[in-house]
């Protein structure tokens, strides 16, 4: 694997899961608002279907981030790194954060999909 690719995996593993969760919250809120608000209700947006799409996309990004974090962690365990320990720090941090944010993304998604729509 090239150095550039390893660097990308390190940063993607660190950033993708939290960004995915933030996107799930913000875009999901927007979709819900568009489906349920007085002015846009007549557009006929299917709230659950749209939310399912948002959850699928953001969940995929979060899981991809987790996989990148696992790959970086395994690379570090296999000897990849630098004298300052930067790669090791990023790999361990991103793996811990990715696990947490994947869980958050899944739990948020489940809540959104199973609760009755437009009740807020």
């Amino acid at each position, binding site marked *: 694997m090239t150095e550039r690719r390893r660097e990308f995996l390190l940063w993607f593993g660190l950033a993708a899961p939290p960004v995915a969760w933030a996107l799930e919250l913000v875009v999901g809120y927007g979709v819900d608002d568009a489906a349920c608000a*007085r002015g846009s209700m007549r557009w006929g947006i299917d709230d659950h279907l749209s939310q399912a799409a948002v959850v699928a996309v953001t969940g995929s990004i979060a899981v991809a981030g987790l996989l990148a974090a696992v790959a970086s962690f395994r690379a570090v365990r296999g000897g990849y790194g630098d004298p300052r320990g930067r790669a090791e720090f990023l790999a361990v941090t991103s793996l811990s954060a990715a696990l947490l944010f994947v869980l958050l993304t899944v739990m948020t998604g489940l809540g959104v999909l199973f609760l009755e729509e437009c009740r807020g």
Partner: protein
Amino acid sequence: MSQPLAVPVALQRGRPLAWWGMLLVLATEGALFGTMIASYFYLRFRTPEWPPRGTPEPRVLEPALLTLLLVATSLPMALAVWGARRQLAARARAGLVATAVLASAYLAGIAWLLLDEWDKSPATKEAYDSLFFTLQGAHAAHVLVGGLVNFYLLASIARRPLTQYRVNGIWAMGLYWHFVNALAVLVLLTTMSPAL
């Protein structure tokens, strides 16, 4: 023996600090515009008639053409950055001149459009008008600031050498310019959305 306080240019690696600093500035700018666009749609979703009755629908053709013109300035700006990074001062100058001229044309056009819209329905009339002018005005202000900095950079390399300090300035400004152009598309789509 005292330690040097700054990293010598020859030892710099990667992108300059000015570029990273600009990235942080743009993060806050992105949040600002994100908030304004979210406010626009928040109100839109709650209003049965959008634009409200008595307010004309936004123009489509003229703002779209002007935005196209502005987005096209990313090319000369990229040329300026490319030239500056390779110490090709003439290319850097040409890129900055073309960017500044086209941006001036855009600003003149958008000022005319906004004044015309203001005559029909001023910002004080409805929340719709208020958001329309806030979004368009904030974006035009960003283009104006970018254009002024472009003129400053142009003046600074017109008769003086292309030092690393000035290259870093042009590099950071290139990032700002591409960001403002991407924002122009988002602002256009948002403000044009009632007419689509």
